[in-house]
């Protein structure tokens, strides 16, 4: 690194090399190092290098350092500011940097550099330093508007100090410096007043109300105040508002500059922007007219051309840095240099003009914009543009080396070589230019050397400016006029434009090469003004020239610079060339009156100028300055016409004053001029100073020998040659500073112009839009019209339809009315009918009511009729009775008659008898009636009785039914019990039979045992046994036989048994058995016991034993049956129960059984057996028998009963009476 660093440090001197390639390499290296290296070594080295050598390359590098190095740079500069000897270059460097406007410049407010700058301004006593510093400060102020507010009062203090510098320290400093200083203070005043009006005014108020400062105010400030108008902020703003950062945010740097210029009344300082311009109306119209013509498109080209110029500016400026100096040094010595000096003087005078120009350029950019029409129209033909750009580049390339070559040679012949090459380069156009060039010289026949000089320094920037101005001044005029009035010439104009464009391009290149040269060489720069004056001079003759040249000739006016280049080569052709402009001039002069007037006036102005110059410098160069003013007029029609006119008059006066002054004082005439004319601004004074200084210097230099100035000075042996030199140098420096400052301002204006152009573009675009909208509006209005028409048609149709509808509606309405009427009629009819209907209904109701009434009546009558019929019947019966009675009456009457007759016959006593009869009859009837009544009463009673009886009967029947039910119940119960008892009885019988059988068996066994003794009864017994085995009934029958036989046989053995077995039955049966069975065998003794006569039916005897066994049972029941209840019960149950049948049937089998058993015997009375009734009777009889038997031998019977049944059936005899009693009970209950 360090090695490289060293290397790079070593490289620095190489920056001054003349080899462009090497230079580029070195710059690239340095830049690269700066980019990579953060250290301050290289930067410091650069700064030191600059301080030592004042190298433009170093400035260039330093002013384009990047962000991180800014601090180092500022620090370094701050450091350098501390040293008195370095202060001036440092300030110069700072000025360069500030003018370069790097992006980090606003940071300067934070660094001590600003403070040290201010401190320097406040303390330093070197005027040059002060002026430089003030210019830097003025430049810097718009860049740090809000940052500057901390230092505001320091600014003011600086201002106060510098303002009073003149008065405070007179004599110390050369007057020239004071003029410069005054100008810079004036600028500072404008800046401060423009930026901080309130604060500044208050400062001024506070500062200059002090008595010690009053003189300063009177001397310095008051004239300044005359050049400013009242700042609007003084009315609306406040101190605080002024310092508000937000206020500054709206403004860019150039805005601020313009703002400051706006408040200035000084034509050199002021802006002519809208609202502040105090120009006549027709100028305004002019102004307006011009933008309308110009279109937006050309601006790009304009910019590009500018850009290219600036780029060439950057790349090329260094080359001519020294040559001018060298020139300046040589110029005096070399014989051809006289003209250069002359030109220099001219230049110096032109310097003022340039200052004017730059001041004018405050507004001139706008006019330049207007001038831009040629490029614009050129833009319409791209081919040309391309060719131009193509040609432009090589021209650049050529021009720069040419400049480079030209300068080292520093000799006019050598320098003159390049331009031809250039012109050759653009051969076709150059040819024209070359043809046109002569008039330049023609314009100033006096000064042939100047063009030569121009040729020697062909590539000077001022020239370019001049060209540009010239071109731009001329062109707008022509274009405007042409476009407005002469359309036929359009083509030609286009051609011109092309040429113009080509020329401008070239010129730009040329001028850009020179620009830096001029920047360094303040006095050299005016050179362009010489060209202007040349062109102006050319134009002036135009008015008078009647010669109609080619229409292209106007370009010659523009191409004058070129011509000036070629002047050196073809001076002779001047006269011819002059004619061309003239031929051109008539083309537009008649068209534009204002311009015409200008043109007319400009000569006078030019005259004045020339006069002035002539006064200022006796050299033949003087006249030339005059004509260029005219160009200014043309270029700045608004302002120029405004105050140039005024100024010319002023100047005319002033010149007369100055003339004498100039004669006397030379350089110092300005002050007097300034005093003489109060309104003369310091800038003007400075202008004049420069001009005069140049003249003076020229004069001095003329006297100087060629070799060198120093030699001259020494040669002359002047006391102040060194001083003078120093003064001149510093003056040069000051002028350079001033120039830089002005240039800076110009750039700001350029920036602003661009912005304004943008606005104009927008405005035109909007206008286009507006037009389009208008067209659309028209179209739409047409549409609307058509629509309206159709609307009308529709409306008509609608109206028609509406009418139709109305008609229809009315018709329908009438119909509706009719219908409604009809409907109303119907309604009324309907209502009538309804009312009728109601009436009818009412009547019907009434009729119905009547009908009902009638019906009622009918019913009633019917009823009555019935009643009547009943009555009738009764009456008929009565009639019958009556008739009967009548008959009776008749009969009685007859009888009466008979009786009467009889009576009559009988005599009178019949009557008595009759009377008696009658009375008896009456009594009898009465008695009968009573009887009848009695009978009826009796009937009623009987009927009642019957009813009672009937109810009783029903009750009884109910009772009976209940009784029946109960009886039924009871019967069922009884039957159940009876069944049980019967089964018991059966069982008993079976038992008895079984026992008997057993007994018999036992007997038989006994008998067999006896038979062993007797053996007689064995067969009988065997037979009996066989029989008994067969059938019990037979056995049953047999046994009595056996018993009978046994009884027969063994009476003593079983008397008791006999009786016991058949207690009553046996007793009865035995006789029968004896009668039937035993009849043929033995006679049963028991039969004898019972009395036979007691039995009425002997045949009934045989069943006796059975009957007797049963009789008591049946007897028990039948006596009851014979009673009333019994009879009834029998009737009732006959159907239902077969109990009776059972009872009835029960005997027959037995009887049959008996009869079967008796078949062996004789059955005596079968008839008696078969009939139940007989049995009943027999049973009835048997009761008596039993009773009798009981009565007869109750004791024996009971004994028998007890014996025979034993304990087994003791209840049997008891049961019968029980039964009977039961029945009686029941009967009693029933009854």
């Amino acid at each position, binding site marked *: 690194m360090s090695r490289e660093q060293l290397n790079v440090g070593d490289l620095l001197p190489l920056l001054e090399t003349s080899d462009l390639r090497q230079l580029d390499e070195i710059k690239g290296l340095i830049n690269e190092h700066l980019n990579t290296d953060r250290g301050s070594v290289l930067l410091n080295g650069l700064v030191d290098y600059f301080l030592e050598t004042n190298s433009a390359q170093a400035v260039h590098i330093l002013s384009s350092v990047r962000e991180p190095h800014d601090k180092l740079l500022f620090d370094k500069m701050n450091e350098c500011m501390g040293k008195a000897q370095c202060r001036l270059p440092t300030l110069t460097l700072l000025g360069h940097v500030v003018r370069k406007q790097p992006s980090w410049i606003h940071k300067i407010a934070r660094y001590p550099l600003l403070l040290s700058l201010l401190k320097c301004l406040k303390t330093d006593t070197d005027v040059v330093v002060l002026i430089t510093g003030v210019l830097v400060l003025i430049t810097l102020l718009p860049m740090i508007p809000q940052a500057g507010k901390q230092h505001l009062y320091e600014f003011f203090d600086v201002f106060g100090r510098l303002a009073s510098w003149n008065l405070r320290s007179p004599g110390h400093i050369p007057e020239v410096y004071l003029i410069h200083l005054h100008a810079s203070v004036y600028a500072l005043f404008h800046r401060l007043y423009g930026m901080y009006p309130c604060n500044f005014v208050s400062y001024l108020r506070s500062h200059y109300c002090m008595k010690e400062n009053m003189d300063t105010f009177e001397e310095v400030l008051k004239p300044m105040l005359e050049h400013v108008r009242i700042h609007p902020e003084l009315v609306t703003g406040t101190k605080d508002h002024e310092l508000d950062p937000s206020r500054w945010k709206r403004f860019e740097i150039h805005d601020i500059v313009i703002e400051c210029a706006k408040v200035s009344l000084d034509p050199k300082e002021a802006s002519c922007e809208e609202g502040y311009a105090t120009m006549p109306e027709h100028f305004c119209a002019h102004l307006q007219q011009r933008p309308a013509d110009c279109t937006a498109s050309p601006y790009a080209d304009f910019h590009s051309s500018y850009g290219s110029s600036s780029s060439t500016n950057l790349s090329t400026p260094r080359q001519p840095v020294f040559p001018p100096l060298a020139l300046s040094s040589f110029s005096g010595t070399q014989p051809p240099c006289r003209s250069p000096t002359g030109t220099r003087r001219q230049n110096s005078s032109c310097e003022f003009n340039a200052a004017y120009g730059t001041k004018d350029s405050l507004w001139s950019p706008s006019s330049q914009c207007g001038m831009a029409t040629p490029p614009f129209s050129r833009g319409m033909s791209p081919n040309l543009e391309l060719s131009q750009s193509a040609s432009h580049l090589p021209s650049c390339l050529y021009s720069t080396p040419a400049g480079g070559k030209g300068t080292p040679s520093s000799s006019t012949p050598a320098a003159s070589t390049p331009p031809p090459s250039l012109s050759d380069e653009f051969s076709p156009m150059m040819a024209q230019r070359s043809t046109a060039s002569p008039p330049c010289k023609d314009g100033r026949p006096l000064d042939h050397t100047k063009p030569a000089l121009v040729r020697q320094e062909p590539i000077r920037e001022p020239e370019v400016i001049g060209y540009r101005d010239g071109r731009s001044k001329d062109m707008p005029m022509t274009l405007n006029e042409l476009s407005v009035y002469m359309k036929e010439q359009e083509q030609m104009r286009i051609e011109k434009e092309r040429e113009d464009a080509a020329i401008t391009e070239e010129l730009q290149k040329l001028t850009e090469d020179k620009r830096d040269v001029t920047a360094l060489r303040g006095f050299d720069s005016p050179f362009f003004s010489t060209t202007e004056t040349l062109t102006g001079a050319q134009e002036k003759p135009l008015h008078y020239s009647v010669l109609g040249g080619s229409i292209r000739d106007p370009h010659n006016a523009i191409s004058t610079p070129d011509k000036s280049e070629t002047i050196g080569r073809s001076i002779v052709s001047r006269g011819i060339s002059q004619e061309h402009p003239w031929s051109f001039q008539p083309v537009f002069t008649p068209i534009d009156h204002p311009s015409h007037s200008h043109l007319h006036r400009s000569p006078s102005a030019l005259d004045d100028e020339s006069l002035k110059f002539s006064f200022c410098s006796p050299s033949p160069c003087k006249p030339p300055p005059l004509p260029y003013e005219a160009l200014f007029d043309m270029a700045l029609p608004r302002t120029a016409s405004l105050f140039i006119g005024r100024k010319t008059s002023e100047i005319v006066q002033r010149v007369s004053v100055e003339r004498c002054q100039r004669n006397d004082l030379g350089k110092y005439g300005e002050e007097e001029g300034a005093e003489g004319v109060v309104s003369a601004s310091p800038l003007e004074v400075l202008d004049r100073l420069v001009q005069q200084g140049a003249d003076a210097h020229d004069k001095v230099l003329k006297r100087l020998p060629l070799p060198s100035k120093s030699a001259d000075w020494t040669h002359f042996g002047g006391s102040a040659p060194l001083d003078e030199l120093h003064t001149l140098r510093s003056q040069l420096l000051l002028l350079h500073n001033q120039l830089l400052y002005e240039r800076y301002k110009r750039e700001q204006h350029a920036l602003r112009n661009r912005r304004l152009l943008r606005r104009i573009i927008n405005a035109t675009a909007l206008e286009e839009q507006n037009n389009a909208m208008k067209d659309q509006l028209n179209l739409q209005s047409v549409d609307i019209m058509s629509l309206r028409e159709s609307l009308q048609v529709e409306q008509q149709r609608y109206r028609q339809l509406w009418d139709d509808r109305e008609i229809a509606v009315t018709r329908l309405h009438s119909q509706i009315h009719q219908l409604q009427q009809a409907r109303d009629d119907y309604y009324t009819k309907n209502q009538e009918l309804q009312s009728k209907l109601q009436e009818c209904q009412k009547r019907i109701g009434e009729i119905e009511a009547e009908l009902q009434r009638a019906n009622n009546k009918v019913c009633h009558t019917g009823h009555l009729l019935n009643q009547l019929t009943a009555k009738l019947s009764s009456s008929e019966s009565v009639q019958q009775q009556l008739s009967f009675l009548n008959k009776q009456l008749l009969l009685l009457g007859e009888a009466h008659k008979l009786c009467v007759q009889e009576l009559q016959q009988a005599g009178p006593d019949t009557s008595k008898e009759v009377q008696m009869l009658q009375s008896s009859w009456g009594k009898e009837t009465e008695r009968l009636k009573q009887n009848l009544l009695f009978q009826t009463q009796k009937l009623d009673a009987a009927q009642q009785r019957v009813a009672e009886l009937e109810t009783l009967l029903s009750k009884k029947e109910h009772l009976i039914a209940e009784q029946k039910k109960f009886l039924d119940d009871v019967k069922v119960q009884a039957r159940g*019990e009876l069944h049980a008892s019967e089964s018991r009885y059966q069982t008993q019988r079976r038992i008895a039979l079984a026992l008997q059988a057993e007994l018999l068996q036992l007997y038989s066994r006994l008998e067999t045992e006896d038979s062993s003794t007797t053996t007689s009864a064995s067969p009988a017994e065997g037979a009996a046994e066989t029989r008994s085995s067969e059938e019990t009934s037979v056995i049953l029958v047999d046994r009595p036989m056996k018993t009978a036989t046994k009884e027969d046989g063994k009476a003593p053995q079983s008397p008791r048994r006999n009786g016991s077995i058949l207690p009553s039955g046996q007793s009865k049966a035995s006789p029968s058995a004896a009668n039937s069975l035993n009849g043929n065998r033995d006679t049963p003794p028991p039969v004898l016991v019972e009395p036979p006569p007691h039995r009425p039916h002997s045949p009934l005897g045989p069943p006796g034993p059975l009957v007797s066994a049963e009789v008591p049972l049946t007897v028990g029941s039948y006596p009851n049956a014979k009673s009333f209840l019994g009879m009834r019960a029998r009737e009732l149950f006959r159907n239902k129960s077969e109990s009776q049948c059972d009872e009835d049937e029960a005997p027959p089998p037995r009887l049959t059984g008996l009869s079967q058993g008796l078949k062996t015997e004789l059955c005596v009375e079968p008839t008696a057996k078969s009939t139940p009734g007989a049995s009943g009777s027999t049973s009835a009889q048997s009761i008596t028998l039993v009773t009798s038997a009981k009565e007869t031998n109750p004791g024996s019977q009971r004994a028998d009963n007890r014996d025979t049944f034993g304990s087994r059936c003791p209840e049997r005899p008891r049961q019968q009476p029980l039964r009977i009693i039961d029945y009686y009970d029941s009967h009693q209950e029933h009854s």
Partner: protein
Amino acid sequence: MAEDPQRNFRSAYYENLGFRGVEEKRSLEILLKDNPLDVEKLSTFSQRFPLPSMYRIHVWKVLLGLLPPHTDSHALVSRYRAEQFEDVISALTAMRFVNATTPPTDLYLRMYQLEIQQLPRRSELRSPVEGDKHFLAVARAMEEIVDDPVDCYWLIKCFVNQFNHKFGDSIPHLPKSLEHFLSQEDSGLFAHLKASGSLGSLPYCLWFRRCFAGCLPESSLQRVWDKVISGSCKILVFVAVEILLSYKIMLMGMNHPDGVFNFLSNIPQENTDAIVTKAIDLWHKYCGTPMHSVQ
């Protein structure tokens, strides 16, 4: 039924659960509360429902005419019955047909013989004939069912009397109907029995003359007898069919009529209840439920 306020509203539930007899008992009690007992209703009830065992004897008595419908005379009649029983016993004792050691069934037989006047002479005592055997079988079964000897005798007597009197004519036709129903229920078994020839030698006497006395245990038997006493001899057929169906597997394995006869004469006593239940269901199925409402 539904309008009977006394009827338990849970009856339907009980019936669904298979607790038959809960409601029957109640309705039976209602029936028995009538003063003249409605014998027809009782018999219908007995046919439709199984009798509760606590009322069974009483119902049998009424149905068999042992007691009259009138409850008022029950005491008297039962006294008569008891006296009669005593009388007969005393007579038999007097005739020395019986003594204290005589088994009750023999006693009952003698008594019955005495009552129907068929008591043989003592000297001619013979071995019991077929009818006597039937009677003895019934008596044995009845003795198991009834405790009181009087009631027992009377029930035996009445049962036998009623059975002979009522169904004496239809008993010979029962084997036919057995065949019919068997063929309907299980033709395979029927065919087998017929093929094996055992159809004719089934224990018809045991089944139809003795009413399964000695064949079924008493607990099952009394349910069969309920139906018989209430007037249906068809139930005997269905019980027989059900027995055949229940032992179908065994029977199908037997080909000899004697084996069949022996087996059927001594069938196992295990699940006779189920057999009877199924038989009753079958009977209801074929002969329908007696339509006389209990209520």
